[in-house]
């Protein structure tokens, strides 16, 4: 069974790359749209609302297919990797937006009032008072989202990107060892998810340092 491993792991690079790049994009979008949804301007709130609802309301696989098959009709032909990162990143950014928003709201009102009383600028209030506290509540749900993202990367195999899942499918076609290949694939994803969970725990401990 283990001799199948090297061929499978050829897709590991793509899976990890996709997860990392989409996480960076998704994280940035989650912050921007999370803050945007709390904006005073109704236009910004509307725009972020539309972004979040469209990407949460349609399915990830539909988004991937749309960007891969339908966008070229507009003359925009993107490489598979870019489509993967964009679709995954925008999808998880929309889910993350809600996480960012709710953890910012959860910061006690008194903290913001204290910051105003200390004559802090809005930027200082955000960076020094609100975000460090919101960040702690954000980490566990963001960790869960990161696992969902890792699982979501398997979908890119359906738009012909050669990730772990794709290598599994093509290896199955050449060797016919179906059960072993799918079992191995599941185990590899499980190990990857385990690393993410461990990393997020570490981050959580670090963020909680010096607090009781």
């Amino acid at each position, binding site marked *: 069974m283990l001799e199948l491993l090297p061929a499978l792991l050829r897709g590991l690079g793509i899976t990890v790359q996709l997860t990392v790049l989409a996480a960076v994009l998704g994280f940035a979008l989650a912050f921007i749209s999370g803050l945007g949804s709390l904006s005073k301007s109704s236009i910004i709130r509307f725009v972020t609302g539309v972004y979040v*609802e*469209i990407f*949460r*309301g*349609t*399915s*990830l*696989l*539909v*988004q991937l*297919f*749309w960007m891969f*098959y*339908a966008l070229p*009709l*507009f003359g925009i032909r993107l490489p598979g990797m870019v489509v993967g990162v964009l679709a995954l990143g925008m999808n998880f950014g929309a889910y993350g937006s809600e996480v960012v928003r709710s953890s910012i709201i959860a910061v006690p009102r008194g903290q913001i009032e204290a910051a105003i009383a200390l004559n802090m600028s809005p930027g200082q209030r955000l960076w020094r008072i609100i975000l460090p506290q919101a960040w702690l509540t954000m980490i566990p749900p963001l960790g869960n989202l990161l*696992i969902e993202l*890792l*699982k*979501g*990367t*398997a*979908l890119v*195999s*359906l738009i012909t990107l050669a990730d772990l*899942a794709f290598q*599994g*499918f093509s290896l*199955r076609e050449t060797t016919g060892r*179906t*059960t072993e290949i*799918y*079992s191995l*694939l*599941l185990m590899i*994803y*499980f190990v990857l*998810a*385990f690393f993410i*969970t461990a990393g997020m725990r570490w981050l959580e401990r670090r963020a909680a340092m010096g607090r009781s």
Partner: protein
Amino acid sequence: MWDWEFAFYVMPDILKAIRVTIAATLAGFALALAVGLALALLRRSAFKPLSLATIGFIEFVRSTPLLIQLFFIFYALPLSTGISFSAFQAGTIGLGFHYGTYLSEVYRSGIDAIPRGQWEAATALNFSRLRTWTKIILPQAIPPTVPVMGNYLIAMFKETPLLSAITLVEMLQTAKIIGSDCYRYLEPFTLVGIFFLLLSYPASVLVKRLEFQLKQQ
């Protein structure tokens, strides 16, 4: 670029396929409700190996991709066990177990929220275990979790396009077939996206309202 005539021409076929999508969602969710409850109860078992095995199973299923699980059920299980499923059955089982592991956590949070006094009262009244669960614990544990379950129902609905990968002809697969027949993917895929949005957005508003009402009580 966007061809209205073509859009209206393909719409009936896609609308017809919505039925398969919804049927798969409902069947999968019904199974997930049962699997979730079973897992939540097994996890509480006093027999340690059983509860540990359940936790392990939940963690494993939750952290591996549904797509691979579907392939496993559809292609690998028939080879190793001799039991084979239709695409719809395999899809229902995959969705049911995958989301069952999520729902088990929801049940768990509901059960954990029941005050100790309720258990003690049941014991004091000499209720059997079955009666304690069915008359005291579950009727109180489940209602507060309904909005969370609703959210998982919506999430699951949006995962049904994955079943196209195991040859189930649901909405996305229908759109793909139309696309490859007519060399036009824009309209069919856009329509599928719009239909998903049209169904899932009102549903999520409904769940939010339900959540708000429960909080008011």
